[in-house]
């Protein structure tokens, strides 16, 4: 008896499943508690529930239609980019599509990469984790006013219409992939998408209450640290898994990811200390820097060397720091209430990282090997391949336009049936009005009343006097 077929390699399958689990942890509990700690106390529960429910919704959509739209056979909608912009929807719930060998029609078997060594369920689950984290990221733009029901509708529509096109174009063998645009593990598909869509959604839905914007301080920084730590280390799976094998490029991607992140964190920290308005190191600034580094290295992780990773971290952190502290203070930007600044830390950072691939991608960084010993790898402008930068620009433009447009359309369409914003009197109160729950419930409030059935018991409770009595002895 043997445990699995010969096309399957337990090492590669394990790596992929572990990478997927790490990416899953980045969403739940990672982003959920990172954002729960960053928002006002009165919105923490709402934020977490939006995260948990979006994660669930995307998985259901994913197995029912979205995976095939992202990684299936192309749906030929017209000429040019329309010929391979999205896949035919379909389910992946049968036994065959769970335990059969993984494959992406336009990629596997075309010589673009080696045969997968794991089953389709591994590929589907790994890619689900990426699809799921994307709405969670731009949740940061719309928290504090979005109607919960509208969110439940928005997520499957956005994921099915927007995300699947992003993924198909760059990873499913779609038009931009064929043209040669690169996105190692989601600088465009995920982060630029989240930044763009979040910003548009924030504009369409409108700002939080003025009073909330003025008073929006975080509520729990250690909670932020937990989310941030899980994000950082979880990113080992996020970027490490996109070679699809537990090989040398995966390891290099992991090291580069950490390196760019460390540099970006320190860069932001030093900018805060020596150029910031208050000239002090701040924890939340460092975390911003960290996220910028993680996001910016994402499209580049396995394509650049360590030097490239250091430069990506440095450049992205400086640019986003300026974007955050200067651009973000402009009247124009203040009009749109991107609550947690996703447009900077994910949108700008993802864009910068994607363009830097066009500069720094180094052909010496072997992704795969040909049988003859030659390597499969990619090159950017600094390695004699100027066209790569154009390709990166083109792909970025496509993502920005498509995502912005469709986010707008989807929200307006939902707005016909359901209010996009919760009513102001609900916003005044927050979690308690939306969910009858609050983040840190206090018994004091209740000591004061008690549940009606319980009250009689409490008031009459015979233990009160004798128990309290000894306390008076001294």
């Amino acid at each position, binding site marked *: 008896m043997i445990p699995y077929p010969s096309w399957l390699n337990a090492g590669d399958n394990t790596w992929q499943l572990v990478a997927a689990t790490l990416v899953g942890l980045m969403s739940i509990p990672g982003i959920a508690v990172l954002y729960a700690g960053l928002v006002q106390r009165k919105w923490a529960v709402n934020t977490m529930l939006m995260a948990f429910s979006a994660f669930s919704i995307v998985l259901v959509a994913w197995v029912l239609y979205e995976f095939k739209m992202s990684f299936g056979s192309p749906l030929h909608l017209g000429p040019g980019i329309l010929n391979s912009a999205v896949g035919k929807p379909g389910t992946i719930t049968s036994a065959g599509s769970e335990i059969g060998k993984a494959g992406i029609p336009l990629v596997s078997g075309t010589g673009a990469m080696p045969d997968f060594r794991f089953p389709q369920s591994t590929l589907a689950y790994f890619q689900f984790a990426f699809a799921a984290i994307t709405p969670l990221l731009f949740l940061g733009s719309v928290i504090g006013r979005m109607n919960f029901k509208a969110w439940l509708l928005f997520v499957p529509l956005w994921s099915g219409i927007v995300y699947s096109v992003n993924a198909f174009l760059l990873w499913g063998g779609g038009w931009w992939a064929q043209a040669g645009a690169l996105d190692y593990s989601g600088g465009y598909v995920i982060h630029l998408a989240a930044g763009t869509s979040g910003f548009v959604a924030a504009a369409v839905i409108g700002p939080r209450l003025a009073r909330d914007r003025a008073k929006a301080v975080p509520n729990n920084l250690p909670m932020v640290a937990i989310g941030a730590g899980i994000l950082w280390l979880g990113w080992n799976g996020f970027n490490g898994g996109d070679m699809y094998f537990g090989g040398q490029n995966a390891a290099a991607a992991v090291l580069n990811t950490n390196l760019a992140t460390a540099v970006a964190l320190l860069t932001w920290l030093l900018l805060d200390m020596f150029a910031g308005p208050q000239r002090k190191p701040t924890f939340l600034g460092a975390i911003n820097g960290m996220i910028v580094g993680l996001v910016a290295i994402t499209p580049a992780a396995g394509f650049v060397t360590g030097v490239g990773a250091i430069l990506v971290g440095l450049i992205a952190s400086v640019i986003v720091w300026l974007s955050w502290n200067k651009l973000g203070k402009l009247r124009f930007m203040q009009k749109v209430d991107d609550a947690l600044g996703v447009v900077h830390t994910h949108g700008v950072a993802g864009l910068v990282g994607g363009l830097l691939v066009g500069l720094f991608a180094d052909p010496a960084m072997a992704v795969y090997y040909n049988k003859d010993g030659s390597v499969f790898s990619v090159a950017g402008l600094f390695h004699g391949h100027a066209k790569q930068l154009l390709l990166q620009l083109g792909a970025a433009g496509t993502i920005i336009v498509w995502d912005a447009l469709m986010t707008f359309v989807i929200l307006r369409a939902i707005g016909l049936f359901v209010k996009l914003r919760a009513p102001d009197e609900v916003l005044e109160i927050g979690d308690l009005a939306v969910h009858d729950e609050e983040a840190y419930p206090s018994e004091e409030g209740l000591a*004061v009343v*008690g549940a009606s059935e319980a009250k009689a018991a409490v*008031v009459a409770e015979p233990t*009160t*006097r004798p*128990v*309290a009595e000894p*306390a008076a002895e001294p």
Partner: protein
Amino acid sequence: MKLITAVLPASGFERVHEALRTLGIPGVTVTTVFARGVGRVHDEVYRGTRRRVELQPAIRLDLLAADADAADVVHVIAVAGVLGTVWVTPVERAVRIRTREWGEAAL
């Protein structure tokens, strides 16, 4: 008009509050405070270092009452409570903001 202030152990507070409700006192302001004698004096020990905590969490209750009712209210609190202290201070005037009622009408 009088201001009646009571400092009560957290665990005995429900009984007093219930008694006041029965009496028909609607408005009451509740503050969480630290007091001595309302709970067992105890130690906290973190990682081997012992620290004495002599002031325990307690509940402070402030309520306005008409001159005529003050004695009754104090009595009710004293009877319903087990531990704690109550005191009465004179109030010169009171306003209920919503209705702009003054004096005892504001209660």
